[in-house]
């Protein structure tokens, strides 16, 4: 029985890993399609019907390309950079609850790789590690543009982690737990945290954009100023890893936002559905709901990217330190006051 449990966990890990990779792959396709539609264009439509095989073609291209390591670059760190970026991006998914425990036969399986009681802290830790991939890669390239990109990435992530952490504190005051599983369970039905924490969500959303280096906060790879930013010197699959890491980060942060604020796998009327379809199908519907929320967030990320121009560096710092952090602190105070007087 022990062995079976380990086997099930192993299968779950592999499935989630594959899902994040496939989602990341098709996010590149979706990004181009969304960009095209928002600009009255067509987008990739040559590889397969509607260009659906475009990610495969891109992947094959990435693998076939010549691998260049600049002579003056630090050889070891040059390879460690993208590896670290993709690794930290992939392990973030371990604590996210994808659905309610599913019942197959007499066995109940958690649709979550591991439920650690400091789930949010784990996510924060992994996200903070992610910037090391960018920093190391940018520094090891021995190129001033890469270094500037790396510096920007580091300062941006540090600034916005503060705001993100503070915005989460107000949420934790309500939930009283750090475990993502318990937070998801508390939002049963329509009791989503967004209703009680709208301001906190907006702060978290803005910080998530900054943490994943997505436009309008994509200064580390700002093409107009820094050639390619931290990945200027990278080619072949090492570049692919950086791009992949960005998309996986987007997927994970969408899942975190869906879990923390938008009810995760919960949806109105889930009890009625669960009573009618049984304990095997109902969690699967929850998983579908969860992924629908995640994909909506991914779409939102892309929608924003093709709408809003990039921030200037001083504006970025202004927004982070002088707007978001005071707002987050005010949100904490407000939440505390409301909790004291209305409970």
């Amino acid at each position, binding site marked *: 029985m022990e062995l079976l449990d380990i086997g099930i966990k192993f299968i779950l890990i592999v499935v989630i890993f594959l899902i994040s990779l496939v989602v990341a792959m098709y996010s590149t396709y979706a990004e181009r399609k969304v960009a095209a539609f928002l600009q*009255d264009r*067509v987008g990739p439509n040559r590889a397969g019907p509607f260009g659906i095989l475009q990610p495969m073609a891109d992947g094959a291209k990435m693998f076939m390309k010549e691998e260049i390591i600049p002579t003056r670059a630090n050889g070891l760190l040059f390879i460690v950079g993208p590896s670290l970026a993709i690794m930290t991006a992939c392990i973030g998914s371990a604590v996210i609850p994808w659905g309610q425990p599913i019942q197959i036969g007499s066995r109940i399986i958690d649709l979550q790789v591991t439920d650690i009681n400091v789930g949010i802290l784990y996510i924060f830790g992994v996200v903070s590690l992610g910037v090391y991939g960018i920093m190391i890669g940018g520094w090891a390239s021995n190129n001033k543009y890469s270094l500037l990109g790396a510096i920007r990435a580091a300062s941006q992530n540090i600034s916005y982690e503060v705001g993100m952490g503070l915005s989460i504190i107000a949420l934790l005051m309500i939930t009283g737990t750090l475990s993502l599983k318990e937070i998801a369970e508390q939002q049963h039905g329509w009791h989503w945290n967004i209703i009680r924490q709208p301001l906190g969500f907006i702060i978290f959303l803005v910080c998530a954009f900054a943490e994943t280096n997505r436009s309008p906060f994509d200064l580390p790879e700002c093409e107009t100023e820094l050639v390619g930013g931290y990945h200027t010197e990278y080619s072949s699959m090492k570049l692919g890893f950086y791009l992949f890491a960005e998309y996986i980060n987007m997927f994970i942060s969408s899942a975190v936002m869906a879990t923390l604020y938008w009810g995760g796998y919960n949806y109105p009327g889930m009890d009625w559905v669960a009573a009618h379809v049984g304990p095997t199908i109902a969690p699967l519907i929850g998983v579908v709901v969860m992924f629908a929320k995640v994909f909506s967030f991914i779409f939102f990320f892309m*929608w*924003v990217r093709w*709408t809003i121009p990039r921030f200037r560096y001083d504006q970025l710092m202004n927004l982070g330190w002088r707007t978001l952090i005071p707002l987050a602190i005010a949100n904490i105070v407000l939440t505390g006051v409301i909790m004291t007087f209305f409970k």
Partner: protein
Amino acid sequence: MEPLSNKRKVLDFKPLNLLERSYLPEIAKGLGITMKHFFKKDVTIRYPEQKREFSENFRGQHSLKRDEDGKERCTACGLCALSCPAEAITMTAAERQPGEENLYREEKYAAVYEINMLRCIFCGLCEEACPKEAIYLDGDIVPTDFLRKDFIYGKDKLVEPKLNQ
């Protein structure tokens, strides 16, 4: 100073209020605009499968015309080559032999007629110059190729096919 046009607009730089400083309403407005475009029909013409209609007087690839009996109209007078500002046309004249009356309309014809499509500027002066109405730029866009020599089109590509074939 008098404004040159009535398009002048006086801007006043007021400090932004709190709502404007939060960027959020403007961002929402921008997102609304892009979303409107999301549902708009795209204007792209999917080129190789779908072609834009050319205008009536579009000048494309040249064709050497035949008359109603299928004889080549060109008499190798050389006026087209002379008129060509890009010097894209060369030809070699030859005399019609007895028995070739069904092939060429006049006693003299072009044995070799070449247009360098890389030199041609599609100005249409050759069709203006032609006294025999033998050359017209009524074809399609000249297709791409890999080698320069393949852009020199001879009679095999230029003479229009016979009507009854």
